């Protein structure tokens, strides 16, 4: 279990987190569900140290290695797909052959190996996001953070990319913290779901072991989560 206790953070006099605490089961996909602007992305940025200036009583998240799939692919336009993956690898500790093998196997998993020599601006949005998933898995990590990575994709692309993501995740089963405001995505991917409320950000409901539920229990849980989300608007 990874624990975060009493996180406090303000931004421009606005309190975002006030003694916020959270527990994340290791080696599972945990979803943080909540409406836009409730502090989900800020929480991921705090965990990965993108955002600084916060206080915390205890954090098991410090000194962990992270991978991050952002809302947008964040690829380097001047580098090919292959070089984008190579960019995040530590060239000092890997031989050329090892690097080549891990890059190509990750690209193969997302069916982008044929496009390794392409530049990002030659790819569609879905293809670029697949490359960013491959980049997240090419480097060893303890926790994978995902910030609405399927937002803006059409339903067919989304389904395809989600499947490929799950396929890759099943190979190492590392801890994943997945942020979304889409209930169906959360139910499709997550083991545990934390629903977040805002002002300041807090967990208002936790759905445990959503993945184990049978269809009828899942429907009940879906309705319950939907009601909670609706009450937040």
């Amino acid at each position, binding site marked *: 279990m990874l624990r975060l206790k009493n996180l406090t953070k303000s931004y421009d006099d606005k309190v975002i987190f006030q003694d916020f605490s959270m527990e994340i089961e290791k080696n599972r996909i945990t979803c943080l569900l909540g409406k836009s602007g409730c502090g989900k992305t800020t929480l991921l*940025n705090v965990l*990965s*140290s*993108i955002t600084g200036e916060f206080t915390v009583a205890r954090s098991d998240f410090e000194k962990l*290695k*992270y*991978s*991050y799939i*952002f809302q*947008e692919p*964040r690829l*380097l*336009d*001047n*580098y090919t797909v292959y070089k984008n993956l190579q*960019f*995040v690898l*530590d*060239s*000092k500790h890997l031989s050329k052959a090892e690097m080549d093998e891990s890059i190509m196997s990750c690209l193969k998993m997302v069916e982008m190996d044929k*496009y390794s020599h*392409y*530049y*990002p*601006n*030659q*790819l*569609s949005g879905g*293809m670029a996001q697949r490359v960013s998933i491959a*980049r997240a898995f090419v*480097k060893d990590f303890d926790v994978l*953070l995902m910030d609405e990575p399927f937002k803006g994709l059409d339903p067919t692309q989304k389904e395809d990319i989600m499947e490929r993501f799950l396929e890759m995740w099943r190979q190492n089963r590392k801890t994943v913290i997945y942020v979304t405001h889409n209930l169906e995505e959360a139910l499709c991917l997550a083991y545990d779901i934390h629903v977040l409320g805002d002002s300041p950000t807090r967990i208002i409901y936790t759905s445990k072991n959503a993945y184990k539920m049978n269809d009828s229990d899942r429907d009940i849980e879906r309705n319950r989560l939907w009601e909670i989300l609706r009450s937040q608007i």
Partner: protein
Amino acid sequence: MRLMKKRFLKAAAIILWLLVWQILSVIIGKELLLPSPYITFATLIRLLSQPAFYNQILYSLLRIVAGFLTAVISAFLLGVIAGLNKNVEILLSPFITVIRSTPVMSFIILAIIWFSYNLAPLAVNIIMCFPPIYDNVVKGIRSTDNKLLDMAKVYRVQPVKVFTGIYLASVKPFLMAGMNTAIGLSFRVAVAAEVLANPRYGIGTKLLQAKYNLDTAEVFAWTFVILLLSFLFEQLFKKITEGGRRNAPAEKSDKII
């Protein structure tokens, strides 16, 4: 066809202005004030036959190229540091403001006092080419995509790779724009400095000598040489940057849907 038309129009414009020049020189009728194009080109051909002509050009070019390259390297390095660190930018800002607002002639006179006649044009060239390149490099660093920097931070990418992969890509178009401005400036400043510093060899020295000899045709001929060299350098620079662009990512039109 369109290219042919464009070339034809350009050639026609040059011929038209040569004609205007010829007519004006006939109207004025004094070679000392305005020599005709024919006399100017005859003087140029006479200069071309003299071995010393190439020596003058070589020395001027050495000052121009060395000054330009020194300015590029120093402005790039300081621009990167200032772009990354606001305090360094504040520290350098009085120096940059002084360079930008001081008349070139003041720098040339000071450089003649401080350095040798040969080095003064080089020093002034460096100082005058520095600000446009420096300003652009700082802008380039500041316009770096923070989202990419955040990505690199999360993945713990080595600083050297962050610099070459993210910062350099952001700075490149700004650096090119700065260099483009500086390259034209370099020719004008170096020759002006040579006129005042009067080194043993240099186009500026020859310009001044022609003026003393009341040989206006030679002044025109040397001016033509400066324009031609400046044009050739700008074309060479364009070719180099276009070569760099050819290796860059393809345009959106090649996108796979």
